């Protein structure tokens, strides 16, 4: 088995071109191998010391989050918590303190699980995923990146280098909530992210919803155009819940049945829209929303 530690993106890309697989925190890759799901790749390149992948930056166009940024940094970074709050909500729910210290956004995105907690937030925030190989650089829509449970459209010689988030207009808020049976070391039963932009009178100018763990990949809810110009009241959130439940195509597994998932994903979508709208109006709701509104067994 071969193992190297890259310190630059170019070094990592060279190793990928030679057939090595990247390991960041290993919380999916190494843990999966321990559970015997898939053997550890026989050629690995560690990317957790590549400085270029570790920064969170901002310019007029928006934010750039290096693929190696850990969940712990996302949930405490003032830019992410302030402007891209749904992503902080998602990062704050992942695993335990140790999982959040070690696990990265790049690993979460590239692992491609339909239950990933940064996925739905990235979709509603309008993220683009930057993929680089030794010879190419491209930006992909995350919904085109994820092709099925655990699969992506990235080539094996491509490294995810960053997640790019557009600058958001004023009076925009976002939130992510997930249904969980306990408060740590849990995987989303279902989840929903929402982004809401309001005008000065409180009418909806923009509204996006994405769902976790109710389809083979993270999915966006369609048909939210009909909600434009309305105020965020019970009528609107009922309609949100209905749209989410109708469009979900959940499976039954040991965590929940399909009917339960279909119903509860509507409830999560409703709560995500309510929280996002409150944040759009400037109301502070602590990260993660789950704790603030009491989802998850008390203790």
């Amino acid at each position, binding site marked *: 088995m071969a*193992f190297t*530690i890259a310190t630059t993106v170019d070094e990592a890309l060279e190793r990928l071109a030679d057939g090595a697989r990247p390991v960041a925190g290993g919380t999916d890759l190494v843990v999966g191998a321990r559970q015997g799901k898939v053997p*550890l790749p026989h050629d*690995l390149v560690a990317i957790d010391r590549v400085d270029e992948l570790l920064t969170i930056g901002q310019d007029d166009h928006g934010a750039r989050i290096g693929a190696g940024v850990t969940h712990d940094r996302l949930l405490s970074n003032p830019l992410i918590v302030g402007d891209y709050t749904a992503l902080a909500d998602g990062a704050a729910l992942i695993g335990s*303190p140790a999982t959040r*210290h*070690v696990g990265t956004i790049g690993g979460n995105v590239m692992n491609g699980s339909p239950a990933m907690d940064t996925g739905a937030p990235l979709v509603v925030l309008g993220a683009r995923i930057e993929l680089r190989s030794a010879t190419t650089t491209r930006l992909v829509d995350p919904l085109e990146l994820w092709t099925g449970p655990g699969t992506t459209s990235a080539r094996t010689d491509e490294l995810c280098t960053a997640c790019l988030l557009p600058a958001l207009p004023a009076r925009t808020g976002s939130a992510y909530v997930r249904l969980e049976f306990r*408060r740590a070391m849990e995987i989303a039963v279902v989840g929903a992210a929402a982004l809401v932009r309001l005008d000065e009178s409180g009418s909806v100018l923009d509204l996006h919803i994405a769902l976790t763990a109710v389809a083979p990949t993270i999915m966006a809810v369609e048909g939210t155009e009909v909600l434009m110009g309305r105020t965020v009241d019970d009528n609107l959130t009922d309609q949100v819940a209905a749209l989410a439940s109708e469009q979900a195509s959940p499976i039954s597994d040991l965590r929940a049945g399909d009917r339960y998932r279909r119903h509860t994903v509507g409830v999560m979508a409703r709560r995500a829209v309510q929280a996002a709208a409150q944040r759009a109006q400037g109301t502070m709701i602590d990260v993660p929303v789950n704790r603030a509104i009491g989802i998850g067994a008390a203790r």
Partner: protein
Amino acid sequence: MTQPSPTNLSNRLGYELEVNGVRYPITADAGRSLLSVIRNEVGLTGTKEGCDDCECGACMVLVDGRPVNSCSFLAAQCQGRSVTTVEGLAGDDRLHPLQQVLLDAGGVQCGFCTPGMLISTHALLTVNPDPNEEDVRIGLSGNLCRCTGYTNIVAAVLQATGTRESNAGAEPEA
């Protein structure tokens, strides 16, 4: 930092691992977990193997001060970094104050989870020296205990940090 050079013949890597301030020369397969190298190559057995599956936290160590489930982290990824195990918390033959308070508060029964609990507590207190009960429960949420029911562990941590608002159960004996 020394770059590891993959050796083709034996599939083994040679590197140095710093544990509790001491550098150990290691020769091991690149796929070996940090836990297995700490216990079997370095020879420090305070760090426990509960599940070997990243679920229980018995194997928790600090890598550059951050909590890591060592059963599920590659040892080779730790070269050039500093690893702290439970043995590194205490001074010469004296218990770390956290260890003493955990014992006094009845936060130790079989003791198998204790090294991991101590490491997670240490990591929490480094970033938040004055946690409330909720902070402690979140800080220890990656550590399972099958004996105590957690109450006395949480109480011990709060006592160690001097937090008085604790209603985390039985008052520890003085």
